[in-house]
């Protein structure tokens, strides 16, 4: 057969054939999803970068190009202080969370602490709840005049003045520290559990005691996990908006996030300066996450000699009750006390710091939750409806994307897969408020601004990697031959996906979906930048109430959110199992 003598018609059908061979279901979906993911991730970051070089003139009319915004970061009256405050908060909460997380993980994984299997789910609850609501609760517990704990201290123990003042930068460290402790816990507990017990045993046989073995063998072995957890906590605290907004900003301790917020929507709004601050924050966090992903996360596997170990736990003797008490105290302080406080406050018409049983009423719940009544508060009503739409719709769309992206990363070898893999890690490096700033400057002049779509877009872009990780973990464990045998049986790519791949991934898909549902339902730092009247979310509703109404109404809506989250956490535990988050 010779190609030279092919007539023109055959030549044309050659190209038609080639085109047909390229236009497979797989390729078409792959290209579409790559473009969507690429645009969603790159566009806002690029616009953010470009906008940071646009300097607004003093009248606020015109912009010029230059480094003016970056100069302002250093010359401004507040921003340098905000930067220092952010650093203090992140460092402090990292120390606190790491101490709590490592000790709790060790107690649960390596000791015979009583009831440890029952304690674990409660240790993880703060991870799923909203730190913003934790801050509101702790404000009501530790505010000098109206704080419940301060009043109890005065009434019961006769202490003069205030036991504590939570409305300080240290209050922010306290609340973020206890809320992010589960992050460290999750990074450490898996490797502690899978650790080869003979490593510890051999240390014991050399004569090292329990304390010494733990310090010289156990902890160094899980060091990569501890460092990973610590970095994630540092980054998450630096990007946290709700807690400093509630506890420190009103009392003079601004942070980068509260400053970005005021530049985005405040009276002195300057999107370009906001973008510059977001850029600076983003560069720091993305650098830290890069270190974690590149150098620390890969090492965590080398300390583990494989699964299937049933590590023999350490006998703490009578000290195990101390460990038990310590763990119970954490759950009490991080979960029970804040929720109890919110319930109490939410039942009072006004909150003065004193429990008045005869004044208690459900009126606050009526005004915030009964959205069909004319006296319902509009921001709360909008928040409930919008957050449910975003949580159901957003997590569904995000999981579809996560599924296709995971499929491409693990099942196709084609061009662009490495890029896609990279793109699906990038959003993890940027705090929600940074990405939201990018989305704001990108889409402010498009029709999706001031709609729910802009929120949905930002939510999905920021959080779909979490869903993707849930699916990827399972996909890596499933043989590719299961898919291939379906193709060989005559099923198309899409049929295979629908009838074989998706059913096999169902647990991962569902766990990922609920995780995103939880994240979306409590989301604040993206929403606070991108909402407008009518598109408030649940957490924005809480923000509105705490800013413009009173604490009892705030507590009522906070409780409603907390209850829905607790139910979702319960379902997540049931479907995802113990190891789902630790991967």
């Amino acid at each position, binding site marked *: 057969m010779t*190609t030279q003598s092919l007539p023109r018609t055959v030549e044309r*059908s*050659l*190209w*038609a*054939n*080639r*085109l*047909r*061979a390229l236009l*497979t279901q797989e390729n078409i979906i792959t290209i579409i999803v790559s473009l969507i993911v690429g645009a969603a991730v790159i566009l806002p970051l690029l616009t953010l970068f470009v906008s940071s070089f646009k300097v607004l003139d003093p009248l606020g009319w015109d912009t010029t190009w230059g480094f003016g915004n970056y100069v302002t970061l250093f010359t401004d009256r507040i921003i340098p202080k905000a930067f220092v405050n952010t650093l203090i908060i992140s460092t402090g909460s990292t120390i606190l969370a790491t101490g709590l997380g490592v000790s709790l993980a060790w107690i649960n994984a390596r000791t015979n602490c009583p009831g440890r299997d029952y304690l674990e789910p409660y240790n993880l609850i703060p991870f799923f709840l909203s730190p913003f609501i934790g801050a509101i609760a702790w404000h009501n517990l530790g505010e000098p005049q109206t704080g419940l704990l301060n009043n109890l201290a005065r009434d019961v123990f006769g202490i003069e003045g205030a036991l504590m003042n939570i409305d300080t930068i240290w209050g922010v460290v306290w609340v973020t520290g206890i809320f992010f402790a589960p992050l460290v816990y999750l990074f450490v507990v898996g490797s502690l559990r899978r650790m080869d017990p003979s490593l510890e045993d051999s240390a014991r046989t050399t004569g090292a005691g329990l304390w010494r073995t733990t310090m010289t063998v156990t902890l160094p072995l899980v060091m990569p996990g501890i460092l990973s957890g610590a970095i994630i906590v540092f980054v998450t605290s630096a990007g946290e908006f709700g807690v400093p907004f509630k506890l420190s900003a009103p009392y003079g301790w601004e942070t980068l996030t509260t400053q970005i917020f005021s530049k985005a929507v405040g009276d002195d709004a300057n999107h370009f300066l906001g973008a510059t601050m977001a850029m600076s924050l983003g560069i720091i966090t993305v650098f830290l996450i890069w270190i974690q992903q590149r150098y620390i996360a890969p090492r965590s596997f080398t300390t583990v000699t494989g699964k299937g170990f049933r590590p023999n736990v350490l006998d703490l003797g009578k000290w195990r009750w101390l460990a038990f008490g310590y763990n119970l105290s954490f759950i009490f302080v991080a979960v029970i006390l804040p929720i109890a406080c919110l319930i109490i406050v939410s039942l009072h018409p006004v909150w003065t710091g004193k429990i008045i049983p005869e004044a208690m009423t459900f009126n606050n719940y009526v005004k915030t939750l009964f959205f069909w009544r004319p006296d319902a508060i509009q921001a709360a009503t909008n928040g409930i409806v919008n957050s449910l739409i975003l949580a159901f719709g957003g997590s569904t769309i995000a999981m579809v994307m996560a599924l296709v992206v995971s499929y491409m990363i693990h099942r196709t070898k084609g061009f662009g897969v490495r890029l896609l893999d990279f793109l699906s890690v990038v959003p993890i490096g940027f705090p929600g408020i940074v990405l939201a700033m990018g989305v704001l400057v990108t889409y402010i002049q498009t029709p999706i601004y001031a709609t729910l779509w802009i929120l949905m877009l930002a939510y999905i872009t920021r959080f779909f990697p979490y869903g993707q990780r849930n699916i990827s973990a399972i996909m890596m464990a499933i*043989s590719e*031959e*299961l898919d*291939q*045998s*379906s*193709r*060989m*049986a*005559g*099923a*198309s*790519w899409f*049929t295979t996906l629908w*009838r*074989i791949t998706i*059913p*096999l991934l169902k647990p991962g898909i569902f766990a990922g979906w609920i995780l995103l549902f939880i994240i979306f339902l409590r989301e604040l730092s993206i929403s606070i930048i991108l909402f407008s009247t009518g598109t408030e979310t649940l957490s924005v509703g809480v923000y509105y109430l705490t800013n413009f109404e009173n604490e009892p109404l705030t507590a009522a809506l906070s409780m409603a959110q907390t209850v829905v989250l607790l139910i979702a956490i319960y379902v997540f535990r049931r479907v995802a199992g113990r190891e789902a988050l630790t991967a």
Partner: protein
Amino acid sequence: MNSENQGAYLEVENLVKWFGDDPAVDNISFGIPKGAFLTLLGPSGCGKTTTLMSVAGLHSIDSGRIRVGDVVYTSPKEGIFLPPEKRDIGMVFQSYAIWPHMTVTQNVAYPLEIRKVPQSEIDDRVADVLALVGLTDMAEKMATQLSGGQQQRASLARAIVAQPRLLLFDEPLSNLDLKLREQMRVELKRIQNEVGITSIYVTHDQSEALVMSDEIIVMSKGHIEQRGGPLEIYSRPVNEYVSNFIGVANLIKGRVVKVTEPGRGTVKITDHGKDIQVTCNLGPGISEGSDAVLSVRPENVHAERENGNGTSLEGEVLQAIFLGSHVDCRVQWGDFEWKVIAHPRARLKQGEKVYLRLDPEHTLAVQP
């Protein structure tokens, strides 16, 4: 039928597939008649699985052409790439790839459902094929409840239920234990005979290949080394590589001194500086003066106490392991260690002097 006029039913022409900078399959061609059972045999990395995957359409190829019947599966030059699901192929995978979320019946019925066969017919055909592979009792079990051997049978049932044009096996027995593997070889061959579907079987296990195949293609480094029936491959390997890969052989370097008649001649080998001439058969491509490797199967070396006709090789028994039906011997001859299978009655002992007589009919000179 038209396709029969074109010769082979399956035809692979000049197949080339690169992985990065290395050619996994480097320009191979072969064809097989309808109903035949062909085995691609070779060590890992020889390109056998790549060839199979190219036929299956589970990856693209760089150049060449694959045709089955009148259907062109792949031909980059013509811009043709038929997706795997349109090729009408049944495939048995190394991991069996039985879907764990379905029952045995659902697994086996799947190819028929995809082909939109009416439900009543599906029921009949699934029952028939499950009976054929001996899984009737397991029909309603979940796939995860099956043992390895049963998963293998289910996988075979799923591959043949739709009576595809072609059946592909990717090392299907390598995950089974030895006893089950030997049993399944026979079983697989019986079932393939019964359904009569043209089959390509990939394995690195030479005894599997010898037992099951109508024809064997021995591959190495992306090339075809030899193609032929099991007996031919075993008794007349074309080169040292094939001779070494199939069964056990004594391989001694030498030089052809004379070609007495086509296919026969004498080869000179060296013993303690003394040249010895051995009369033997000559493989293809062997001519006077060329370097050659003498290939002698251990069962064709006769260890004797006397130098009968004066041409035997004198050696010393290094090791004699009694294995019931035969004795597995090692005989030191110069620097070379002969593998010899002797009769137990010969009662060879370690350290004893023996004479090795080579049977000219079963001594072959092949290309190095």
